[in-house]
């Protein structure tokens, strides 16, 4: 799906997005003019070899990183060069992150990890606790609320991470190789969870380099050298 005229379904839109930085005295173009749009409720797999710029694309889409040039329109609003605080606010209210290595805070219990976004949203303790229990149940971890991450298996940790990503009821879920550190069976369970979320209407952007995993997504985006290889991408 090439970017075309402004379209109401173009919920997330990148327009000639460029991101470059200096590394070892050399200019690296992590994104070399990416134009793409994603509709509300899409489930995308973002693929490509390492160094292709897919992680940078993820960081930009997740409002962690800013563009060097070009535009990033989120729901019609240009967020490509907003201040750090405003981008934090967008992440807090609209985006949920899932990482390859789970990124749970080791000293906090499962419940506290899940409650983390609610803490920054300013929820009170009672409400947060109810919500955390609800989410833990949803990912099948109600029994583990008071465990610490180190006491969990990889699959369980990723479920906690998903519960945490859902705590703020985000519109977009950005998943960076969510099954990368999991065995095939557990990975499949996690993917099933993501598919469920997709069916519930969440927009999911998932980075992966495994075609088997990418198959679970509706649409695929293939990155090479900071650009989209449209020939290998697939958008039904």
């Amino acid at each position, binding site marked *: 799906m090439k970017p075309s005229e402004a379209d109401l379904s173009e919920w997330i839109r990148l327009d000639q997005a460029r991101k470059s930085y200096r590394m070892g005295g050399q200019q690296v173009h992590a994104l070399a003019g990416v134009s793409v749009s994603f509709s509300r409720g899409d489930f995308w797999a973002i693929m490509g070899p390492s160094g292709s710029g897919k992680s940078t694309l993820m960081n930009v889409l997740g409002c*962690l990183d800013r563009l060097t040039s070009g535009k990033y329109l989120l729901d019609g609003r240009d967020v490509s060069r907003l201040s750090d605080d405003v981008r*934090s606010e967008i992440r807090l209210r609209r985006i949920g992150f899932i990482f390859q290595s789970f*990124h*749970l805070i*080791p000293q906090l219990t499962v419940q506290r990890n899940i409650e983390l976004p609610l803490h*920054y*949203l300013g929820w009170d303790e009672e409400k947060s606790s109810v919500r955390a229990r609800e989410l833990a149940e949803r990912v099948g971890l109600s029994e583990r609320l008071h465990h610490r991450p180190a006491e969990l298996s990889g699959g369980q940790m990723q479920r906690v991470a998903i519960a945490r990503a859902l705590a703020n009821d985000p519109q977009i879920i950005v998943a960076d190789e969510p099954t990368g550190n999991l065995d095939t069976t557990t990975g499949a369970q996690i993917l099933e969870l993501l598919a469920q979320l997709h069916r519930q209407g969440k927009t999911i952007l998932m980075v992966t380099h495994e075609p088997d995993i990418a198959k679970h997504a509706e649409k695929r985006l293939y990155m090479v050298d900071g650009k989209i290889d449209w020939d290998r991408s697939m958008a039904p």
Partner: protein
Amino acid sequence: MKRTRIVRNVSLGVENLLLHKLRSFLTMLGVVFGVGSVVAMLSVGEGASQEALEQIRKLGSNNILISSIKPTEENANSTNPSFMSIYGLTYADQNRIDTGFRDIRRSVPVKAMRKDSRLGGRSLELRVVGTTSAWFDVVPRQVVAGRVLLPRDQTHRSPVAVLTEFGARKLLATEGTIGQSFRIGGDTFEIVGIVRSESGQAGSIQVPDQEVDVYIPIEVAQSYFGDVFTKRSSGTFIRERVELHQIIVEVDRTEAVEAVASGIGTMLKRFHKKADYIISIPLALLQEAEATKRRFNIVLGSIAGISLLVGGIGIMNIMLASVTERTREIGIRRAIGAKKMQILVQFLIETVVLSTVGGLIGLGIGVLIPFLITYFSGMPTVITLSGILLPISISLTIGLIFGIYPATRAAGVDPIVALRHE
């Protein structure tokens, strides 16, 4: 809402610090000792200076003491046996003081001499103080038995005497002795009361009382014993004529003390050719003592400041290490949507909690040490409110100041880099 969030942030900070109990404890040790030593030193210093100040206060901060002293040049002639040195304050001086100044509430003349006394079979050399009833108003003394001197004792020229507790004990005088007669020199007096004495030394001024004082009406002292005293010194007799040994002046208002004192000085200079008197102002002594105390506190404060500085640097050091160690946590929090300011506050709270808890533990130690000092050595120590609040607020401030840098470093962590950090 805002309050509960602060409470929650603090409790999260405490939770985090409790994960590394030993490290947190070691980190706050510098502040513990810093605050502990400040509190202990301040209370020992305060105890010592309060003791001194109390002595001065006994003299009365509204009082002026004018004492007769023998001029130094007189000594040269003292080998002449027929020579009599005449010096000191006079009845006329007291009259002029009484009538010439507006702010004086009362003045008390004192005539003091040493006389042998005898009660029953006991004898004792006493310092006989001829004075007025106002003596007991200027420095209030506790009455142990009987009464003090009254104005009618003066008008009737009654030969009555008030003993001090110490003198009474030596003479075996008790409550039952009140009303009995005893002898001072060659004369008979009636014991009418026993009072507790306010003895002691305050700076260069002798507090008016001595333990072997006996108080009699000044008119009686004058008519019985006269104004000429014979002293024996290294084999020769020295004859002196002194009308009054001391005049104690009580001023209405503390602010007027200095003005009245200098007025009296000017007046006395006019009537006395020789410097045979000395004016001392307890208030000035008090101010001097307080200035000394302030200097002492500044010295203590600087020592304490240095130790707290060292403690603060210790905390900062550990917090910086903690920020590095928790880079990934910071990245996670940032990715979830924490603003820079929230990360800053999180780390700042941890530092402030560390330094404040350290300060409280230090306070406990600092309160215990003076208690032990007083218990074992009997040295007076005083813990004042400011001696507690000052170190606590300083440790809080230390936490804020030395927490800012690590917290800023934490807030400045790039979430993208931090999330890759292992």
